[in-house]
């Protein structure tokens, strides 16, 4: 059964002239890792709010259609109940700090504390999270005195430590250094192994192509493509939806255009590119 299902969802913000999303339908299975891509302002964060049940209650507007969590209409669940199932990481890391805690360690522990989890269990889980996201050295720092990338890691840790069944993560790597970005994708991979369901909004398509099972592309209010990462990112049409293609795909398209190499499939991951180009450098173009 689907963990999360959207049925023909259409939404318009209260004061807006036009709808922002129309006829959005998809269903996500337990343990799936789905990436949501689209140009800035297309409505990705809005869609995240819809899946979290914040729309139309918290952000007012007019919504039609249905959102089901484990088969139940989320319109009938309380925000508090929903928050136990769905963890959310904000797009803007500068806003996701509680403001009440004095150290990074306590900040990450905050949510668990509110749930009344045993202290020894809290310590174990926070330690594990600090280690996983490589922020152990920040444990005693003040949460408001971090660099941009450090704040973003702490924001992610504070949500992951809650261990929700579904994670909606809105651009979690925007401020991260390249190795930090890799660590986040590796963390998501581990979560997936533990059967967590992950919905990720992300512009870094090279990483999405390497890790995501499935990619949903939104353009001009609608889902314009919903397929495997490999299928989505080997299609040059994606460029017209305001998204980039992975570097290896761009390279392959360029080589193809120059008549240098034939590809049976446009590669979307580094391994695929290596496999397809290996040993062909000397007879390319003939």
């Amino acid at each position, binding site marked *: 059964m689907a963990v999360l299902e959207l049925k023909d969802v259409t939404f318009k913000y209260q004061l807006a002239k036009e709808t922002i999303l129309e006829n959005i339908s998809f269903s996500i299975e337990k343990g799936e890792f789905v990436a949501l891509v689209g140009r800035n302002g297309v409505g990705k964060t809005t869609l995240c709010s819809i899946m979290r049940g914040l729309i139309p209650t918290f952000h007012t507007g007019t919504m039609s259609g249905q959102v089901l969590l484990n088969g139940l209409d989320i319109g009938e669940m309380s925000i508090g109940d929903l928050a136990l199932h769905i963890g959310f990481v904000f797009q803007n890391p500068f806003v996701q700090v509680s403001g009440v805690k004095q150290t990074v360690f306590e900040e990450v522990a905050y949510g668990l504390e509110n749930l009344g989890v045993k202290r020894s269990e809290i310590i174990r889980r926070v330690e594990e999270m600090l280690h996983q996201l490589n922020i152990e050295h920040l444990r005693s720092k003040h949460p408001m005195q971090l660099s941009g990338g450090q704040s973003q890691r702490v924001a992610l840790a504070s949500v992951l430590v809650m261990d929700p069944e579904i994670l909606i993560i809105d651009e979690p790597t925007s401020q991260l250094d390249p*190795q930090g970005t890799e660590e986040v994708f590796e963390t998501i991979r581990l979560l997936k192994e533990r059967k967590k369901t992950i919905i990720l909004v992300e512009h870094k398509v090279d990483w999405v192509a390497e890790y995501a099972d499935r990619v949903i592309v939104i353009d001009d209010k609608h889902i314009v493509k919903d397929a495997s990462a490999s299928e989505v990112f080997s299609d040059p049409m994606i460029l017209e939806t305001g998204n980039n293609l992975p570097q290896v795909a761009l390279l392959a398209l360029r080589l193809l255009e120059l008549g240098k190499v034939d590809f049976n499939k446009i590669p979307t991951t*580094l391994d695929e590119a290596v496999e397809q180009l290996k040993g062909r450098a000397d007879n390319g173009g003939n």
Partner: protein
Amino acid sequence: MEAIKFEHVSFAYEHGFVAVDDISFNIQSGEKVAIIGQNGAGKTTTVKMMNGLLRPKSGEITVFGDDASKKTTATLSKKVGYVFQNPGDQIFNQTVYNEIAYSLKYLKMDKTEVERRVNSAAAMCYLSDELQTNPYDLPFSIRKFVTIASVVAMNVDVVILDEPTAGQDLLGLLHQKEIIEQLHQMGKTVVTISHDMEFVIDNFDRIIVMADKKIVGDANKREIFWDFELLDKAALKQPVVSQLAKRLELKRNIINIVDFVSEYEK
């Protein structure tokens, strides 16, 4: 002429946390430089010292030949403009127009000149249609352009962009490329911090690498992105095209698609 010169500069936040430890470099007037490196390395701290937003604990900073310690932040800011990493730290006016105009009005510039500057900065930053919008009603990605426009309108000699690429889509990156190119054409010095390696390679030649409070590399991009020890130290990675070239055992120093294609042609 040297626009910015750092000599043995160190910085510590209150409570004594050392964020920058003995760094030296200089940037020529009209140069374009990227600063990259691990989270928490001290990049933001470093550039905030260029216009006096932060003051060094020790060492000397020279801005266009003047000792920065003898100048106020307000005076330095007329020459060196800093675009904050977090737009929320910079924006506090109710409309995009007022936000861009704020410093100009503060300097008591006359009305027509303010208007001219705001309009031209807005045009350059693709904000002409948003002048009456509240900056906080704009998506995060566009808000960044508001902060860039504010600095552009000041007509400073040195423009510092702190992670302008964060959260930008393809078009946003293209617009930023155009802005950087225009500033360069105008003879401005441009310093950009970014974690987007493809963007850095596409727009800059000289790259300063920071890790753990220090400058660990300062060289041309073709050297930087094939120096594995350096990349590892600074939590960086080669761009994907270089990784591919390496795995295919092609020539070293390939850093982008153009390089790759021309090497592959041989």
